[in-house]
């Protein structure tokens, strides 16, 4: 199946590690030009070099997405560097945390606002595209309770609702919006490696919830994101795709 991605231009936030890194790798393999960011310039440079081996245009620059003005400026530079934007994947997250009220501020600003600002800033470019598509990275923590009542879970839920609503709003302009909710995804340097190391009981519990006994990989999430984002997924709009290897137990009618 041809995903129809070749020659498309994608902007992915938080793309030097984990799921984001796997998404840009797959996009590059599919011939997509890429703009990416993370907070660490060194990591950005490394990723840019690695992606250029696939003979695509790659633009990268460090930015803290929490800084609204700097982030919007980065988005504009990214779209200029690529000469437009067909696909936007807001992927940065502040991650879990149950320490104080500050977790709510942080998850709101990073997870929610960076997504909203990204969608709004890039919408003129996406509208111009013949295959404009946004895939918001949410989490299964939004659709089923997990762990503690932390801001991460509720803010990811906000993103799923936002994706659905935005899909209605911009569908007539030819832009599709969907979300992908990964379950536990294990990778070196990722949060589940940290949990496995520091909270082995929680790790074992999560693992037991997965019928096949294996957490997902970033590459597996990337393949689903790539399909949803691609012209091949043209019928999908306003969907939340749960990518969790059976981790969640609800029935989604």
């Amino acid at each position: 199946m041809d995903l129809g991605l070749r020659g498309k231009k994608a902007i992915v936030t938080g793309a030097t590690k984990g799921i984001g890194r796997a998404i840009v790798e797959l996009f590059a393999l599919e011939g997509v030009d890429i703009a990416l960011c993370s907070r660490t310039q060194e990591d950005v440079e490394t990723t840019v070099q690695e992606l250029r081996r696939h003979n695509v245009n790659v633009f990268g620059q460090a930015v803290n997405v929490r800084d609204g003005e700097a982030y919007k400026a980065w988005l504009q530079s990214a779209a200029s560097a690529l000469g437009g934007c067909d696909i936007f994947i807001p992927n940065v997250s502040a991650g879990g945390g149950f320490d104080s009220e500050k977790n709510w501020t942080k998850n709101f600003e990073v997870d929610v606002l960076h997504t909203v600002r990204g969608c709004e800033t890039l919408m003129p470019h996406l509208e111009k595209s013949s295959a404009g598509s946004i895939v918001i990275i949410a989490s299964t923590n939004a659709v089923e309770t997990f762990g503690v009542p932390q801001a991460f879970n509720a803010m990811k839920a906000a993103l799923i609702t936002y994706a659905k609503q935005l899909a209605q709003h911009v569908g007539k302009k030819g832009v599709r919006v969907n979300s992908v909710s990964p379950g536990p995804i294990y990778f070196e340097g990722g949060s589940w490696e940290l949990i496995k190391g520091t909270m082995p009981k929680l790790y074992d519990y999560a693992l037991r919830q997965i019928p096949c006994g294996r957490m997902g990989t970033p590459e597996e999430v990337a393949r689903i994101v790539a399909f949803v984002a691609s012209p091949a997924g043209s019928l999908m709009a306003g969907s939340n795709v749960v990518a969790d290897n059976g981790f969640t137990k609800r029935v989604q009618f």
Partner: protein
Amino acid sequence: MDEFWQRSKSPAFTPVPRVRPQDSPHTPVEKAPDPQLDTNVIDQRRYYSREFMQLEWERMWSKVWLLGGREADIPEPGDYIVTEIGPESILIVRQRDGGVRAFYNVCQHRGARLRGCGIGTTGESLTFKCPYHHWEYTLDGGYHRIPDIDTFPQGRPKKGLSEIHCDTWGGFVWYTLNESPQPLLEFLEPLPRHLEPYNMHKMVQTRDITVEWNCNWKTSVDAFNETYHVQGIHPQLLWYLHDLDVQIDCYERHNRYLIPFGTLSPRVRKPPAIPEPIKTIMKSAGMDPADYDRPISQIRRDVQQHKRAHGAAQGKDYSRLNDDQLTDDYHYLIFPNLSLNVHADDFWIFRQRPHAHDPDRMLYDIMTFELVPDGQEWPQRAEHKQWKHGDKSIGLVLDQDAQNLPSVQAGMHSKGFKGLWIGAQELRIRHFHKVLDDYLYGPQGKPPGGL
């Protein structure tokens, strides 16, 4: 480099920043010169031989100063502590004049114990009445009353209770069975200067637990004397402390190491979030991990500076501690049997006591103390609890040690085990055994065939 070496070599790391000696006027931080010790195996029979156990008793346990208890537990005349060491039971008593004296806890009549283990008081009587025939002793060990003394044609035994030497330091009572001991402070050298800057007198005891462990007392001492086992037994601590950048200092008979806390081991990858154990350090310092936006590698230093800036306002006097002491673990072994985890806000003592007659068992005492901030009400001290190996949890880290040690002890007995193969990260173990040998064998050293 062959494949084995590639797989096995220790990871490279950037040294953790540490305070300079001139910035630590109270607790010395100079690296002590490493003792020149051999690399021979340590004979495993030292851990289970009954002859060796006896030698330890005669030449070491009955010669050294030992921790008896906490002075604050016996504030009033007649308050006492009964503690045991090997086959002996010791009665430590607060005197009418405020001093402290210690005796063998044994009635001179028929050998009954006067009191059971623990803390207590004579109450208003200010006498110890033996439960067997009611021989009664004054606080200084003299006779108060012997029922029907007229029926003893030989009169009473010459002296009252058999007294032993005791002294106080650091808020603790120490005793020795040695009839002509060196002074306590001399025995503790050079540690009093190291430990006095901590506010031990402002700390309340938060745990007082004794667990009978199925291993030799030295198996336990060894376990706390190296950080090499962190990657094996306590993997979660690799996201909490630096197990390789550890300064080891060996003194005449005691030793220590300084472990950076609040930082990552070079054995783990940089995680995407602050590890929960490090968050605990931040929170106890009054910092909000959710509000922290700097790299994890900066946290240790930032916690130090935060505590330095806000300690006084939190009622915590850190003025005599250096910056590293505000985060790190200064870990001491007070020979022979006290493993100390010393921190700015708490102080843990693990006391390892030999079993009365079984070299394969020991008593493991956990005594933890926490700083009570100025202006806060003094909490009740934790009550003493005692149980057997594995009956109850003593916290994740210590449970991991506790689960491990019986199998280590069993392995010591194996024909297939050829002795302890000790590396440089375990220098304190080698030093500990050398000091033990000094007690057992004196300046002539180990005789041929000696363990």
